[in-house]
């Protein structure tokens, strides 16, 4: 007889049903019925005779936490409540709090549904410590039904109580289970049920080793306050109330409010903007002033209401940073210089472009993270007389407001960079409240500053773990395996060479060109085959996916994959056999038309690894006639033709601060900048660039043709006309007309905007144009509608584009390699890449990391400029050009240092600003300064230690030509 397995008897009480009502999008009400099963085979985490044996990795011990706390001297286990987990995660994370915690699954589910980033942090903590996850949501013994009128919070609490009661019964009297809650009313409720319960504050205060923890504890707002906080509370509410979520959602549906991400203006922290879609158009709404910002912090998701048209303001012409805040005598209130509050006088408002303005009515989601910065200095004598624990924390990120924290460690922390997290921002407090997390290192120390840079930009920079390194082969013993040799095409005899910047160790592309006769050339682009080493679902792959890109700082490079691969086994070094993924074209020699394209995996042996200069020399020298040089000459000629074709289609050539040379938008060869010196543009740069672009386009077309749902592509949306307002106005004031209708007309207008007297004018106009652009983004073709318009790469003027040519430093390229490999029939597709949803998620991560890496690079350049100026030890005199004219400052470009300096007007009454012509007039000397004018400035370091930053130097800018006197004394060192 055939006998099957019976249903396991551990499932008791089957057929339970939970039903609830939901409202669908259309407004219909549906009854949802779900069944659930309760089990009795859930382990308790201790060495227990009654529970079934599981392969549970965390085991609690019966002796845990003995003798560490005055309140509970004997051994006990802690169960943190949902509110504790939500608010006090820093305390739990710290090592002195101890291991041996029990986490309830119901609490974890609650956190997961409300705050995903917190959930991830919690899972990280769980991985590092000995925390046991008790699955109480399906446990027969601890399950309770939700009562009809019960709120979600009450229900979660009741589940926790039921779980703890059973747990205590289960393990006996010797080991006590302690519930930790956040406030005293919950504590009373729990104690009434017979549980041992303390508030986290009480528990931490009674730990023997609690110095570090006390600072990290978040005190609920109704607990005891410091003196100055009491005075603040007595003041009336400074901000309007936030609307409750239900009203906001209703308003959004009706079209009264809009949901968007709040972005604080980098130059003016009292102003922010959001991007919304109004009537189908993308509109940027300005939110200016403290009250209108209503406690929104950069990156929060907020709900805004648009003000009536009469109240619309123009984009702020001020440059405002927290540095300018001064303290009044009583050290209680902080005031901004009143002139700087956005007072507008009618004269300067006329003719200036008005923007839609709005105000924040409610916060939908806070996206607070941990911020790096320093504690604001207090007057030393006051510190001696009284013990003040309430301090202000000044974040490095200029967009974040100052944060009020409590700490007893002022003396040791005042010279350190510290990490702080925001807890809340009550209505009656001008600034948000937060708590100290940890110290990072001394201020000004190069390593600390670098660390902060990486932390602020969320860049994974820790060393590669052992499990990652284990995935790598031994470089000394490695050679191409014979089965790979037999599968791949053999190009080892072709005249292949690579052309890269000097000092480049990660060579990921090589080229060759052969004359096939009858007017056709064979051109091959060979890209390092990283996918042969980085296999899907290995620790190496996961780490690379997390990093998504190699980050280039001035003195440091954070690699995406370990050096063994990036600089050795994958890099197409000279005279080494390497595995590659090749694109071979047949091109018409005269017109550079593509006749045929094919893709194949191959093996090459590069004849030469040249620099741009070397390659140029070989092309120009009349003696060299070897096949590599001849190939280079052909490539050069073809590249010129290809480039002309692209320019005719409207490809843009723009400029950016980092390189001070002409670059393409989304340049293939300009990512790895390591020096401040400006680069000379040679033919060879452009040559490699053109073929990389052609390769990317060919791969994009092939992928979209074969796997239209799964292709990972890159697009650059055309910026709306409004984005270009600043550019158009700037050029108009100099008599140039910029046509922003499409790429071609824009490129043409940019080419025409030249001033024979000012050689940098065109460069600056291009720099401004770059700032008007939208970001190029990766996306999955299956998730993007309207391919005709949405796949466009505006900057390169191509209808479809992807990244294929740099898998060593970009994860997107690696995915494209895997997809293409599947398309040509070489390998099976990894399950992750069969879903367009998953590919889109990967794209979002890559986009985020890429953006952060760019920001980090720029910040690193700024940091090193500062260090350079410091190292020179005397004030520098530099040539500069006015990039932007503002109401209270001039933003000056210093080409030699690739630096943007800000010159603040010392006294506003001496200057007259005209928004229409973008000029300021210095009244004392009757000098008029226009945008794009050349100036000479003096850069020096001044010590602002008298104000609030001790030992931190700030770059001071003085105008030498035209000469404007100043009262600020520079320091000599």
């Amino acid at each position, binding site marked *: 007889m055939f006998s099957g397995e019976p249903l396991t008897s551990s499932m008791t009480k089957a057929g339970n049903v939970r039903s609830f009502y939901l409202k669908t999008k259309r407004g219909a009400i549906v009854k949802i019925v*779900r069944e659930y099963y309760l089990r009795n085979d859930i382990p308790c985490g201790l060495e227990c005779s009654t529970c079934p044996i599981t392969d549970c990795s965390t085991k609690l011990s019966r002796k845990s936490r003995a003798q560490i706390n005055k309140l509970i001297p004997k051994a006990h286990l802690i169960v943190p409540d949902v509110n504790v987990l939500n608010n006090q995660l820093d305390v739990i994370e710290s090592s002195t709090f101890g291991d041996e915690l029990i986490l309830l699954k119901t609490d974890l589910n609650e956190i997961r549904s409300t705050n995903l980033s917190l959930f991830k942090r919690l899972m990280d903590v769980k991985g590092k410590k000995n925390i046991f996850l008790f699955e109480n949501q399906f446990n027969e013994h601890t399950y309770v039904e939700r009562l009809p009128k019960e709120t979600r919070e009450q229900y979660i609490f009741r589940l926790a109580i039921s779980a703890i009661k059973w747990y205590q019964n289960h393990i006996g009297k010797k080991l006590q289970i302690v519930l930790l809650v956040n406030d005293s009313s919950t504590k009373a409720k729990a104690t009434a049920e017979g549980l041992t319960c303390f508030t986290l504050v009480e528990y931490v205060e009674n730990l023997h080793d609690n110095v570090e923890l006390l600072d990290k504890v978040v005190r609920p707002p109704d607990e005891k306050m410091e003196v100055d906080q009491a005075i603040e509370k007595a003041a009336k509410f400074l901000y309007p109330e936030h609307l409750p979520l239900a009203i906001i959602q209703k308003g959004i549906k009706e079209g009264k409010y809009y949901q968007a991400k709040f972005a604080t203006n980098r130059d003016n922290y009292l102003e922010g903007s959001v991007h919304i879609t109004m009537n189908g158009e993308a509109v940027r709404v300005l939110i200016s002033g403290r009250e209108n910002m209503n406690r929104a912090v950069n990156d929060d998701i907020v709900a805004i209401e648009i003000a009536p048209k009469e109240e619309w303001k123009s984009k702020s012409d001020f440059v405002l940073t927290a540095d300018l805040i001064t303290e009044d005598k009583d050290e209680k209130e902080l005031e901004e210089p009143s002139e700087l509050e956005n007072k507008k006088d009618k004269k300067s408002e006329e003719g200036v472009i008005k923007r839609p303005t709005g105000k924040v009515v409610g916060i939908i989601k806070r996206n607070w993270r941990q911020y790096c910065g320093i504690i604001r200095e207090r007057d030393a004598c006051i510190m001696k007389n009284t013990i003040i624990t309430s301090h202000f924390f000044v974040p490095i990120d200029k967009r974040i407001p100052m944060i009020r924290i409590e700490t007893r460690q002022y003396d040791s922390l005042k010279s350190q960079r510290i990490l702080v997290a925001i807890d809340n921002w009550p209505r009656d407090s001008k600034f948000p409240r937060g708590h100290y997390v940890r110290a990072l290192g001394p201020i000004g120390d190069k390593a600390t500053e670098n660390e902060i840079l990486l932390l602020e930009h969320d860049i994974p920079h820790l060393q590669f773990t052992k499990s990652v390194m284990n995935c790598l082969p031994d470089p000394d013993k490695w050679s191409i395996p014979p089965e790979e040799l037999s599968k791949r095409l053999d190009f080892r005899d072709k005249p292949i060479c690579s052309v890269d910047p000097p000092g480049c160790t990660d060579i990921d592309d090589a080229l060759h060109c052969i004359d096939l006769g009858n007017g056709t050339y064979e051109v091959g682009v060979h890209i390092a085959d990283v996918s042969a080493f980085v296999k899907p679902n290995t620790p190496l792959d996961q780490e690379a996916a997390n990093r998504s890109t190699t980050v280039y700082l001035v003195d440091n490079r954070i690699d995406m994959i370990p050096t063994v691969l990036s600089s050795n086994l994958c890099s197409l070094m000279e005279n080494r056999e390497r595995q590659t993924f090749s694109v071979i074209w047949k091109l018409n020699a005269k017109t550079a038309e593509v006749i045929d394209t094919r893709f194949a995996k191959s093996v090459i042996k590069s004849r030469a690894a040249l620099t741009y200069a070397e390659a140029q020399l070989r092309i120009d020298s009349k003696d060299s006639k070897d096949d590599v040089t001849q190939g280079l000459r052909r490539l050069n000629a073809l590249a010129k033709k290809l480039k002309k074709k692209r320019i005719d289609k409207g490809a843009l050539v723009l400029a950016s601060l980092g390189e001070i040379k002409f670059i393409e938008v989304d340049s293939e060869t300009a990512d790895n900048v390591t020096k401040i010196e400006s680069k000379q543009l040679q033919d060879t740069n452009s040559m490699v660039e053109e073929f990389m672009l052609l390769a990317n386009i060919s791969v994009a077309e092939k992928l979209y043709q074969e796997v239209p749902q799964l292709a990972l592509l890159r697009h650059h949306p055309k910026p709306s006309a409004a984005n270009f307002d600043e550019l158009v106005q700037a050029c108009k004031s100099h008599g140039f007309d910029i046509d922003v209708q499409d790429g071609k007309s824009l490129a043409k207008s940019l080419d025409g905007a030249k001033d024979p007297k000012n050689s940098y004018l065109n460069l600056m106009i291009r720099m401004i144009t770059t700032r008007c652009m939208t970001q190029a983004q990766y996306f999955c073709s299956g998730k993007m509608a309207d391919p005709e318009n949405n796949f466009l790469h505006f900057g390169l003027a191509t209808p479809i584009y992807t990244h294929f040519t740099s898998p060593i430093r970009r994860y997107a390229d690696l995915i494209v390699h895997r997809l293409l490999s599947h398309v040509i029939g070489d390998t099976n597709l990894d399950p992750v890449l069969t879903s367009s949803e998953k590919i889109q998620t990967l794209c979002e991560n890559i986009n985020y990391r890429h953006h952060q890496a760019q920001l980090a690079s720029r910040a690193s350049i700024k940091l090193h400029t500062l260090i350079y100026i410091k190292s020179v030890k005397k004030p520098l005199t530099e040539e500069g050009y006015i990039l932007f004219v503002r109401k209270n400052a001039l933003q000056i470009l210093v080409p030699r240092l690739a630096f943007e300096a800000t010159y603040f007007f010392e006294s506003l009454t001496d200057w007259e600003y005209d928004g229409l012509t973008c000029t300021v007039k210095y009244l004392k000397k009757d000098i008029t300064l226009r945008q794009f004018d050349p100036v000479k400035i003096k850069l020096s370091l001044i010590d602002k230690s008298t104000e609030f930053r001790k030992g931190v130097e700030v770059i001071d800018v003085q105008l030498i030509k035209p000469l404007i006197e100043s009262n600020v004394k520079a320091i000599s060192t």
Partner: protein
Amino acid sequence: MESRILLESTSVKTPFRIDGRKPHEVRSLTCRLGVFQQADGSSYVKLGNTQVLATVYGPHDTRGKSNPEKSIINCKFRLSTFSKSTRRNLHRDIRSIEISNNLTQVFDSAILTELYPHSQIDIYLEVVQSDGSDYAACINAASLAIIDAGIPIKDVVCACSAGFIDNQPITDINAVEESSNGTPILTIGMLPKDKQILSMESSGGIHLDNLNDVMDAAIEGCKSVLFIMKQTILNHIQELKD
């Protein structure tokens, strides 16, 4: 920011599914035979919250053409308008027709049709409540109804569904798992004795590497289902004898 979090770390590696079952546990299955007196054979199957009624009429005279060698099997599948949480009006939609055809083929192979030439056997299936794995429940119900009708059949045809979520093969998919994004589902109907698969139907894409695991999960599920069905049949016969 959700976009920062990678796929792997959002799923907590929990051993329990959304309704508390472990990955290889089938939902609670109840069957009854002989629920209608007027039909030749009938059955009622309740798999979790999915409830299916099956009735069999035959063998009887054909209405049109008849097959001189064997009996014609005619199978009609119907999803009641009230079976899901929103009322649906389609009766003759593509999915119902597809399932009807599949069921016809399944039972065509399983029933000993050579014994009844020039006749027709009708099988009617009605899904009274749908909560995932409708097709599998239908095969089970039809199988029981045929046995109740006393029509000779090679074996007790049993069926079970399986899927693949979070890199894990899962047996017996319920409606929530079915509707969650991108879950591939495989339903296998088989003759358990010979381990012959009569019907394998899948929706969504299953990667070749995972196919074996998912099939194994479905076949394991069939074993559990078969056990219950056999018990039900034997109980029913014994009751009648008494």
